[in-house]
């Protein structure tokens, strides 16, 4: 055997790779033209991009922003020598109607209220959604639903305040009753007292307060909601309300009480088993039949109720996933310290389970937000519904692509940014274990 010993006396310097593997050429070779199959794919893709872009751009670039009717657009384009069906887009309809597509029939002088409301939603949710947001905002989180509702629907300020007082009532009922009669009764009282408050006392109290101190802003009826504002309102309300509902359903589904579990499973599977559109039919045609004679709440409220139930079923499954991801030791740790069921849920289980579930919650929200377009089928004027109404205007009769394109674009911007956010969260949860 030869002598195998070898020592390198001087280290080799780093060399540049062969020219064909770096730089633009290297990149192209590696990423677009490695092998004949890839080359064909690349060429086909380039062709597809070319066809789509050339067609789309020549249509979309069209100086019709100022037109006031389809005919005017046609004239402008004819003046430029562009004739035919696809001569160019008629952007006049967007410039004239985009505010309507955004805000529906909300009084223009109150648009600021809508904008402020959605800014408040952002501020209220920021501490929940972003770690970096100042913790001080957290105190605002429980208040913002009421502030937002008041801004959107207007009316006397006492309504939301009195509604909020319901929670305070519940809290004190809990403290008081659990003090003298124990935990479970306390919980029951904590649920019952606010319900009684809201059903029987809140109205008169708010009325009385309103009479004494009439502070308020002009009321806007929910019928005047429309366009994207309607979609966002339905989506956000449904998600916010469905969250507690979903928690209750998820806990029910996890519980070992047979009847409770059966009820929760039944509800969840039923809602998830039927198309949303049938639930909306229920909202538009049946809900009033199910309610006591004489009750009559407006269609938007009914839609919100059904969409909320729908979202709650999906939310329950998301939260169940979060609960399942928690190790059993957490429950035992809480038990062994003597925390009772509700304390354990509130202090130990839910904070962790919800945190794990945030990406799922955001995805559910995207889904619900997209599904709000279905309300156009039952005659609500969401963006899609409004597009029909706009096309029924004599000026714009015959418009198709411009409105659809605009609506699609706005939806895309909303949903895409949210889906990016949920991906960011997922990544963070994967790596970030304190």
């Amino acid at each position, binding site marked *: 055997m030869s002598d195998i010993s070898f020592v390198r006396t001087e280290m080799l310097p780093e060399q540049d790779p062969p020219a064909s593997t770096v730089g633009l050429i290297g990149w192209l070779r590696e990423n677009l033209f490695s092998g004949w199959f890839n080359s064909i794919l690349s060429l086909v893709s380039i062709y597809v991009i070319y066809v789509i872009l050339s067609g789309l751009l020549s249509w979309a670039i069209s100086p019709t922003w100022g037109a006031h009717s*389809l005919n005017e657009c*046609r004239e402008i384009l004819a003046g430029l020598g562009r004739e035919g069906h696809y001569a160019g887009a008629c952007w006049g309809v967007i410039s*004239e*109607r985009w505010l*309507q597509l955004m805000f*529906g*029939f909300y009084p*223009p002088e109150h648009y600021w209220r809508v904008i402020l409301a959605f800014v408040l939603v952002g501020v209220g949710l920021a501490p929940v959604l972003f770690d970096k947001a100042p913790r001080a905002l957290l105190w605002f989180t429980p208040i913002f639903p009421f502030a937002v509702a008041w801004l959107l629907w207007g009316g006397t300020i006492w309504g939301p305040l009195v509604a909020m007082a319901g929670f305070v009532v519940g809290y004190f009922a809990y403290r008081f009753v659990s003090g003298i009669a124990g935990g479970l009764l306390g919980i029951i009282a904590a649920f019952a007292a606010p319900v009684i408050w809201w059903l029987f006392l809140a109205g008169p109290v708010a009325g009385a307060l309103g009479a004494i101190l009439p502070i308020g802003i002009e009321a806007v*009826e929910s*019928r*005047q909601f*429309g366009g994207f504002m309607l979609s966002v309102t339905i989506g956000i309300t449904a998600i916010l309300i469905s969250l507690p509902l979903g928690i209750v359903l998820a806990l029910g589904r996890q519980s070992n009480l047979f009847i409770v579990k059966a009820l929760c499973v039944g509800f969840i599977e039923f809602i998830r088993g039927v198309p949303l559109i049938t639930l909306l*039919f229920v909202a*538009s*045609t049946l809900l*009033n*039949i199910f309610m006591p004679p*004489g009750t*009559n709440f*407006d*269609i938007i409220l009914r839609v919100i109720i059904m969409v909320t139930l729908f979202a709650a079923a999906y939310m329950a499954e998301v939260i169940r996933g979060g609960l399942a991801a928690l190790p059993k030791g957490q429950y035992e740790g809480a038990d062994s310290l003597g925390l009772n069921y509700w304390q354990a849920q509130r202090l130990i289980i839910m904070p962790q389970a919800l945190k794990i579930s945030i990406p799922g919650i955001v995805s559910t929200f995207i889904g619900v937000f997209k599904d709000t377009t279905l309300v156009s*089928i*039952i*005659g*609500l*004027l969401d963006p899609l*519904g409004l597009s*029909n*109404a*706009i*096309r*029924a*205007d*004599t000026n714009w*009769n*015959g418009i*198709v692509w411009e409105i659809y394109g605009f609506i699609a674009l706005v939806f895309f911007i909303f949903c895409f940014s949210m889906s990016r956010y949920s991906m960011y969260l997922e990544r963070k949860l994967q790596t970030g274990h304190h």
Partner: protein
Amino acid sequence: ATLDDVKARGKLNCGVTTGLVGFAAPDANGVWEGFDVAVCRAVAAAVLGDPMAVEFVPTTGKTRFTALASGEIDMLARNTTWTFSRDVDLKFDFVGVNYYDGQGFMVPKELGVSSAKELDGATVCIQTGTTTELNLADFFRANNISYEPVPIETNAEAQQQYLAGACDVYTTDASGLAATRATFEDPSAHVLLPEIISKEPLGPLVRHGDNEWGDIVRWTLNALISAEELGVTSANIGELSAGTNNPEVNRLLGTEGNLGEMLGLDAEWAKRAIMAGGNYGEVFEKNIGEATPIGLARGLNAQWTDGGLLYSPPFR
């Protein structure tokens, strides 16, 4: 009672379509306009004194009756055909007819079709959710010819399909056909076939059982019709309401008799209704008449005195 509810609310809830050219559509400011809308405004003016005090509730073919039955809307003015079963079985009251229509056919001129009976094998676009699909089925069955129905939810989409040639024929109420044709790039390239295969009396309706409210809507509509017959227009109404020597005009405008009181309204109810958008003729001309892009002729909807069917019972 509905009247009290409306007064207490200060707004009239009026069901309309989600958008039909000339009959109901919101403009850029969100203000609803159209022929059906005008009826709502007249009622609001009569009852509440303000033609703008209307909350328009867009309804689809499916939701309109539920909305009315459940009390979500006080009246429905949504080109709804007065039929036996709707009146009797669904328990509604049609208060009159504001537009006499009939189902017709529109075809491109180049097809060279001159009668609906020549449509064997044709593809027919129908707007669903109305009586049209039933009429159509009956007509073709009775004439033993085949066809291919293409059901479509909204007029805008039906129009799009028809223009693109996805169907040979578009059938809906003749008024709708005319209105649709008017907005085409080249209206003259399309013809309406002579056959009108059904009677479509379109009118506002209210719930069964509240006759006082039904009377108000019925007589508001009649007031508009009578006003035209009596020559009362929004232009001369101020002058006429000072008193004329036509007692019927006086009764209508409340300077004589107590018709308003009988309805549970004040004396000037009809005056306000007429001032809201003018008399029937004015409303017609403004929204769908020959001067508008829609360009409908009065036809059957002329006053009985002009050979039409409009015939309001006397105000007496």
